[in-house]
């Protein structure tokens, strides 16, 4: 037995709290969660049943928290958690779960299966059983500051472009601003339009904002891989920077899991409440619109549908703002069949997008989204998550579909009424 393995078991053991105990005690193996999981519905492979992905943790729980398990351990009858369990379950835990939270919504006894998998990942990563891609991303995040290796230099270059394009000043490290804005590396690298969009919107709405040169990365690979220490370190950077700049609020970017990480997990990771509040960009936009500071002009005539990013909507609670915003710029907003908190995941959340070996399975799982899109009959899909965007575009390309994916923030910026005249 190797040392990381023992450590993994130890970490896993620490994860078992009242919630996990209640969840395992309640699960009656009814299998309904399978129907909620796109990895099961698209493959029909029973191994992808959400609760089955938790067998290793359940094994530990049974052995150490139940009568029969303890008795079996005492008599040497029950098999302990082995390294083989970790290696066998690694793909189930990382490749076939996007932590989308859909299973947690349907479980009849109310188990938060997603939370369980999130916790199980702690043990797996401590034991060293995590996909290379995610390990690398976490390493880069800790060492370089971003899972994709984006440094402030990269951002600075992108900001320079934005300033040139918009003719507006992007405030960096401005003390005492109201809002400190975070980005996901994906936005910096793939969608700098997003930066331009918020620059214009904030300018038009007169928002006092800034970017920290020390902490601009919002994503948190530590959470995805399940490494509490790494996750806490990444959160700490943001908190320190925000406190240093003395901002009132931190804006989470569109990126879904960044919001979940900084808004909901962050304070618990660093063990203290924030002295500032965290808002999602869509929440802020919705608020600006309500206050009349965000004025929009004209509406799109193309029918549009909304892909709800799991971590923003189902696991984040930002449900109405995207709808309000989209309705204000789209004439024909058509909801997909399963939408809002029951929307289907793009297939790339929870670190799956950073996991190369998961790609074939991920593309298979995309069939669910394809089917949803086909049913809605809409060719323009609006979303609010850079990661979803990338995954959706990949899926669309793979299936040779004719669907455009656009960012909601960028769409809003396109319809901004700037200085009284339409842009």
């Amino acid at each position, binding site marked *: 037995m190797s040392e990381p393995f023992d450590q993994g078991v130890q970490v896993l053991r620490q994860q078992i709290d009242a919630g996990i105990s209640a969840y395992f005690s309640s699960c009656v193996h009814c299998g309904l969660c399978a129907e909620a999981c796109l990895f099961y519905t698209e493959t029909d492979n029973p191994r992808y049943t959400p609760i089955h992905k938790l067998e290793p943790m359940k094994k530990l729980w049974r052995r150490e928290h139940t009568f029969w398990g303890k008795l079996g351990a005492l008599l040497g009858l029950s098999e302990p958690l082995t390294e083989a369990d970790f290696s066998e379950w690694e793909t189930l835990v990382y490749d076939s779960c996007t932590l989308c939270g859909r299973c947690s919504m349907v479980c009849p006894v109310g188990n938060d299966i997603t939370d369980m998998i999130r916790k199980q990942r702690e043990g797996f990563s401590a034991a060293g059983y995590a996909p290379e891609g995610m390990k690398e991303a976490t390493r880069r995040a800790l060492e370089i500051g971003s899972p994709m290796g984006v440094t402030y230099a990269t951002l600075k270059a992108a900001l320079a472009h934005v300033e040139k394009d918009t003719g507006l000043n992007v405030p960096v490290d401005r003390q005492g601003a109201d809002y400190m804005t975070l980005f996901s590396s994906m936005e910096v690298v793939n969608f700098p339009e997003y930066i331009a969009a918020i620059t214009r919107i904030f300018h038009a709405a007169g928002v006092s904002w800034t970017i920290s040169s020390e902490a601009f990365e919002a994503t948190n690979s530590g959470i995805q891989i399940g490494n509490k220490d790494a996750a806490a370190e990444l959160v700490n950077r943001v908190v320190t920077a925000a406190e240093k700049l003395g901002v009132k609020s931190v804006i989470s970017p569109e990126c879904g899991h960044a919001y979940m990480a900084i808004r909901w997990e962050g304070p618990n990771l660093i063990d203290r409440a924030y002295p500032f509040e965290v808002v999602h960009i869509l929440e802020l936009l919705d608020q600006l619109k309500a206050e009349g500071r965000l004025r929009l002009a004209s509406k799109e005539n193309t029918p549009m549908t909304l892909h709800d990013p799991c971590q923003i909507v189902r*696991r984040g609670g930002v449900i109405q703002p995207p709808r309000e915003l989209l309705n204000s710029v789209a004439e024909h907003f058509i909801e997909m069949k399963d939408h809002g908190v029951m929307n289907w995941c793009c297939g790339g959340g929870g670190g799956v997008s950073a996991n190369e070996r998961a790609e074939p399975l991920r593309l298979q799982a995309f069939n669910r989204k394809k089917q949803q899109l086909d049913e809605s009959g809409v060719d323009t899909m609006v979303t609010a998550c850079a990661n979803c965007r990338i995954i959706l575009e990949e899926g669309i390309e793979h299936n040779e579909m004719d669907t455009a994916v656009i960012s909601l923030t960028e769409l809003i910026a396109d319809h901004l009424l700037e200085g009284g005249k339409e842009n």
Partner: protein
Amino acid sequence: MIGQFIDGPLWTFSLTVFLIGVVWRIAAILMAGKRPDLATPKGSAGAGALRAVFSRFLPERTVTTQGRLPLIAGYLFHLGLFALLFFAQPHIDFIAEKITGLSWPAMPHWAFIVAAEFAFAGLILLWLHRILHPVTRLLSDLDDHIGAVLVFLVMLTGCLALAQAFEPLRLIHLLSAELLLIYFPFSKLMHAFTFVMSRSYTGATMGRKGVNA
């Protein structure tokens, strides 16, 4: 001889095991503790918990479209069992005599039997689903089967003793119920109590986030 044992000491023993076991299990779960959530809540945790406890009695739409029969069977079984456990005249009499001394109005005999039919159909279908559907087949362990078999035995012996005229049949029913009570706290059957906790924990988490779970 055996009858007296089943009626007396074994009953007391099984009821004690059941009560202590259930309390112990619930206490063990509660004592494991849960760290307080430090994130500023968007909604009320309490309201979310309360909502989840009740809202999960109704299925999500996605589940209803894909697995109707197990869902219907689940309702048949649970509602039927609940009704006949607490509203059948013999059970009310038994509870009044042996446990609480309280009694309440019973449902008519025919309703008792209809409830039993529902419960039987539900349990048989659920168990068949368990062994026939690839997912549940993969998930199920010995505990699930023992639990199902014990509940089935209690129901079957109860149904066989329906005439309420043969003492041995009543004793077999009582014995199987006692076995079930003894097994209960050590098994998955605990979900009858812990589901409230599971739903509350999840509901509270989601409630804080402002999501109706």
